[in-house]
């Protein structure tokens, strides 16, 4: 059935795949037919007069598998020794590996009753279809040995990005940044207002201009005086970029007294004045300030 179907028009046979129309497919079919001939001649040689099609198929299958295995295995051996072309010894080793006695081979080849099968018709080697030839394949760069596989078709790796022209217009950018920020701020504050207590300027309307209710702080000066995180972040950014204006004195002041702003902060609040002052004393041994001196232990006589 496969034979008949091999025609160019045979489309219905194999689950409607397009393979049948393929030249590569024709090639494979031709090979397989040769194998069938081989199997049939071997059967004839063995004395069979006829064989069911199914058994011939099965045997063909087995033979094909065997040969394939030899090829695969031989390839492995060859690659194992860093070659691309298998040598005879590769085949021998393969056959040995597969449990075949190689020594019997010459005798078998020279047997008398063997039939000679004509070589399969030379079908044109199936050229891998060049589906998309987007330019020249790239040659190997000099550091890649030429035996390595060629680069794939350029279309698989060349990228031709497509995007809109970037907006470089200053005005639009500023406009965008401004409205974006405004929208974010608006949305955020509205959300806060919606989810919390609000105050309103109009008695009849509480939603148009919702004001987040004023909530007193326990320590109001902290929020009022300390720069917000955003500002600190900003300051760091701008500081790294342009430090020119910062006067020297300020820098010096910072360096001298920086010591350990972090630890200092924590310590001071956790009542370890003396340990703190001790550590500072170590750093700046010259400074003798009464507030940095360690706290004295009470004397027995002192009774205040």
């Amino acid at each position: 059935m496969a034979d008949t179907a091999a025609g160019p028009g045979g489309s219905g046979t194999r689950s409607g795949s397009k393979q049948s129309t393929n030249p590569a497919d024709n090639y494979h079919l031709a090979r397989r037919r040769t194998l069938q001939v081989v199997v049939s001649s071997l059967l004839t040689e063995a004395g069979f007069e006829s064989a069911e099609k199914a058994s011939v198929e099965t045997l063909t299958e087995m033979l094909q598998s065997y040969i394939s295995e030899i090829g695969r295995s031989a390839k492995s051996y060859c690659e194992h020794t860093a070659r691309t072309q298998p040598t005879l010894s590769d085949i021998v080793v393969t056959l040995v590996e597969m449990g075949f006695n190689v020594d019997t081979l010459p005798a078998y080849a020279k047997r008398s009753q063997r039939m000679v099968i004509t070589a399969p018709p030379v079908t044109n080697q199936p050229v891998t279809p060049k589906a998309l030839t987007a330019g020249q394949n790239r040659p190997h760069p000099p550091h890649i040995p030429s035996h390595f596989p060629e680069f794939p078709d350029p279309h698989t790796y060349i990228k031709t990005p497509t995007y809109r022209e970037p907006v470089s217009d200053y005005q639009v950018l500023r406009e965008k940044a401004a409205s974006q920020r405004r929208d974010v701020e608006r949305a955020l504050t509205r959300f806060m207002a919606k989810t919390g207590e609000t105050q309103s300027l109009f008695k009849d309307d509480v939603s148009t201009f919702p004001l987040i209710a004023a909530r007193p702080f326990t320590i109001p000066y902290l929020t009022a005086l300390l720069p917000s995180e955003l500002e600190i972040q900003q300051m760091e950014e701008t500081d790294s970029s342009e430090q020119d204006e910062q006067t020297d004195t300020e820098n010096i002041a910072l360096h001298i007294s920086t010591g350990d702003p972090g630890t200092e902060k924590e310590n001071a609040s956790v009542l370890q004045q003396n340990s703190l002052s001790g550590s500072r004393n170590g750093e700046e041994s010259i400074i003798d300030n009464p507030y940095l001196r360690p706290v004295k232990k009470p004397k027995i006589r002192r009774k205040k």
Partner: protein
Amino acid sequence: MSPTGIESSRMNRKKGDKGFESPRPYKLTHQVVCINNINFQRKSVVGFVELTIFPTVANLNRIKLNSKQCRIYRVRINDLEAAFIYNDPTLEVCHNESKQRNLNYFSNAYAAAVSAVDPDAGNGELCIKVPSELWKHVDELKVLKIHINFSLDQPKGGLHFVVPSVEGSMAERGAHVFSCGYQNSTRFWFPCVDSYSELCTWKLEFTVDAAMVAVSNGDLVETVYTHDMRKKTFHYMLTIPTAASNISLAIGPFEVLVDPYMHEVTHFCLPQLLPLLKHTTSYLHEVFEFYEEILTCRYPYSCFKTVFIDEAYVEVAAYASMSIFSTNLLHSAMIIDETPLTRRCLAQALAQQFFGCFISRMSWSDEWVLKGISGYIYGLWMKKTFGVNEYRHWIKEELDKIVAYELKTGGVLLHPIFGGGKEKDNPASHLHFSIKHPHTLSWEYYTMFQCKAHLVMRLIENRISMEFMLQVFNKLLSLASTASSQKFQSHMWSQMLVSTYGFLKSISNVSGKDIQPLIKQWVDQSGVVKFYGSFAFNRKRNVLELEIKQDYTSPGTQKYVGPLKVTVQELDGSFNHTLQIEENSLKHDIPCHSKSRRNKKKKIPLMNGEEVDMDLSAMDADSPLLWIRIDPDMSVLRKVEFEQADFMWQYELRYERDVVAQQESILALEKFPTPASRLALTDILEQEQCFYRVRMSACFCLAKIANSMVSTWTGPPAMKSLFTRMFCCKTCPNIVKTNNFMSFQSYFLQKTMPVAMALLRDVHNLCPKEVLSFILDLIKYNDNRKNKFSDNYYRAEMIDALANSVTPAVSVNNEVRTLDNLNPDVRLILEEITRFLNMEKLLPSYRHTITVSCLRAIRVLQKNGHVPSDCSLFKSYAEYGHFVDIRIAALEAVVDYTKVDRSYEELQWLLNMIQTDPVPYVRHKILNMLTKNPPFTKNMDSPLCNEALVDQLWKLMNSGTAHDWRLRCGAVDLYFTLFGLSRPSCLPLPELGLVLNLKEKKAVLNPTIIPEAGPANQESASNPGCHAQLAGFQNPFASSQDEEEVDMDTVHDSQAFISHHLNMLERPSTPGLCKYRPSSSRSSLMPQHSLGSDIIPTTKPQWTMELSRKGIGKEQPMEMSMHSMGAVPLSVFAKESTSSRHSEHHHHHHHEHKKKKKKHKHKHKHKHKHDSKDKDKEPFTFSSPASGRSVRSPSLSD
């Protein structure tokens, strides 16, 4: 030096001036203060003091000390128990207050009370008896040690506790306590001699929680743990003799920062603020260096401490070797605007370390020397730090302030002399408070006093040169430092006290110049000079005829005689002329140097040597005068109103290099709205070399001119294109550049210009749409991401600009303001304000400047009728727990609301806050704002003005504010603003119209009801005051009359009516003995009447019936006529005293007559009646005529 000058001055001054004579019969040498327990939870303090004194007289048996608030447990002298009496008359100034509700009376009583405990008069609240066992000891003038155990519980003044209500220990909560007060207030927290003139050495010990630091004066000798290791004791020694008033204390969980430049200087701040502290104080060493250099004197103390605390009483308080600052002065490197302000505070504090702390004063009248010198050297620091322009600008600003204040109030006297104690000599009779004591001074007066003091020091410098001036300071300091290192026994300590005499003497010694006239003019006498100048150019003689007039008759002015500098800029250059201002010479001829137009092509030389090209086409072709300046160096405390042509002002603005002149010409140009003025101002705005403050004020002037020229104005709105050119992108002019505030000058200009632009108005008197959208765009495109500075002040000013653009809403018949009829422009503004205000909650700005501006803007919208007037929003922001700037802004809005909406409720709310708010500064500020923007004034009729309010305020100043001098004086100021000096007009008249003067045996009109009582007060105002007051009476009557719809013809028109009354009153059986009397009882029962309020009490118709009936029938039952009297008395009085002198006279006569005859009888009768009524709980009670009290007066219930 003229010896006579000094001689005469000596006559003027106290005898004691030569050397210091203590007012006390003993001398203090050393004091120990030990506070061994401080409880933050209960806000209490327990401790003791020990004073070491040497008697200076043999029979010393009583020792008077100062102490307020303290509970004194025990007093021992040399270990012997001593009896003591504690009496503080300032707690309640007037005891029988209800009779006299006039401020004159109060002020006198208050001055007397303060004087009764004044340490400078040798008095004190605490009087200790020396035990008889020690008398012999005392007679030998041997040392006494007074040991006093005391405690303080919830102090209301003197010591301020800040205890945030969060979780954690006191240290974790950031709880702290500090001493505070105005002038000598140390007696509030420990017993002492609370005088600036009583110096002694100190040992100070404070036992505090181990997590806390106690910062006090002098050297920290050691810190020792207590036995349980949970507390530690800070031991301080102050070996430099110091007055108790300069002792201070601050305890809290402070972070400690040793100054990296000066290790003896230590800075303290509250937890978490250390980075800010580092930045803020990084500058201080430069101030130190500056002062030490100019004074050629080392800083007198061995150490210096700065403490930054919350809820500060004042921003800067200087004490011996330490200063207490408001924590709100701390800032990071990103903040521009606060930086110079904070540095100024630091410099001020340090200047006071030398003069004020180290050098103290002999008496209150020498205060001006200290304030003057410290203010003056602070000014020198300003000049060095911020430049001459800033300095001159500041001097001008201070001068304008003091001039305005003196002209308003009638003068500030630097060196009050109280000879003989006669009231006539009272040097400050124009004021509603006594200037004899610092504690009776209005805070505003004191601020102005300091201002004038340093200006006068500058005048002295002008006279004797700065070099001599600094030599004098150096001399004072070196004398003091020599004295300070001496032992007490050397009697040198008084060298550390400065007196006016001593100061002047060393000026005369050092400089050899006689500055007596100057001192006499500015120090011994109050008032400023007011010049009016105009000129004419005499072409023939080529002479400038200058006319300078003075106004020395208005209050607050004085006559100036002496030299006056005039600078004339001519075509050939600038020439100084010194005119001699004499008694009668008004005209001065000044020869001109240049002929007009001669030197057309030449460059014109300026005062500073610069030569400039000018376009002279604008000037008068006949005159070579470009501009004229009177007193360019501000060497007189004066106000000058000078007339010159507009082009002269324009030249002056363009080419005069002195910023003061530029400022003056800007002010003058407001009156010349011409294109030329516009051009001159625009040019100044564009000129980068021009001082930024001048450019800023040019903005506002330009806005004013543009508004005056609105019909002829061409081109875009003023400043718009200028702003666009300076601050907007080249490619897209509607978008502002991303912020870059590296150049502060342009930063300030960028901030100010939109604010000024928003003041522009079009022909319809609306802010042009173009301007509003321009400002909205500025806000929209504001981008601070690339900026190294915070833009919070900039954004705040943008909101101010929005607020400035608001104009009154067009409203049709007072419709209610709703969202629907909101103007679309206002909607946009509101949108921005809402967003800003809400963003503040998420990303708060430094010092919440944006919230502050938003609150102000909302109030502006309310006031202009765009948003319903409502102060609940402000009230919520005014609550304790918000940042103080927010609170003040919110309170300002509430104060304004109270005024505009005449809300009694809000006024009560404010008054309540004055009494209960935990922050003294806020309480002070509310009073201050109410005084500045009063809900009503003494000449005004207001429903708010009623008896209950008078009572309330009276109580507040009489006893409610005894713990804070500043607050009490603030209450006095408010009372004065609301009611004036005499008895408040809303009060019912006192019972007795006439008082029998037993001494002189005649009856006189009750002094309490004489309008503007006392000849001493308000010379000119006496008559208008009287009328206004009466008008105040009439009005409520008129309105109630309208309401009542009674036929009042007979009542109104009414000689007849009055005589009716009088007849009736004369009837012996009538209880309304005095026609004035019933009003008190009645209107106190029914205040609505006197208020002219709309509410008609339900019982009213009945009375009106009676009223009309009474007009007719004489035969009324007693009760009836009483009732009627209640309803009409106002009319009676008003009519009577406005319409006819005659009837008044008549009256008196009647009274006199009646009084003499019936006095006893009536007294008896009424007493009786009174009692019975009380029993019956009849509402219509009234007091005995003799008692002179209103029944409802709270004093009775007390």
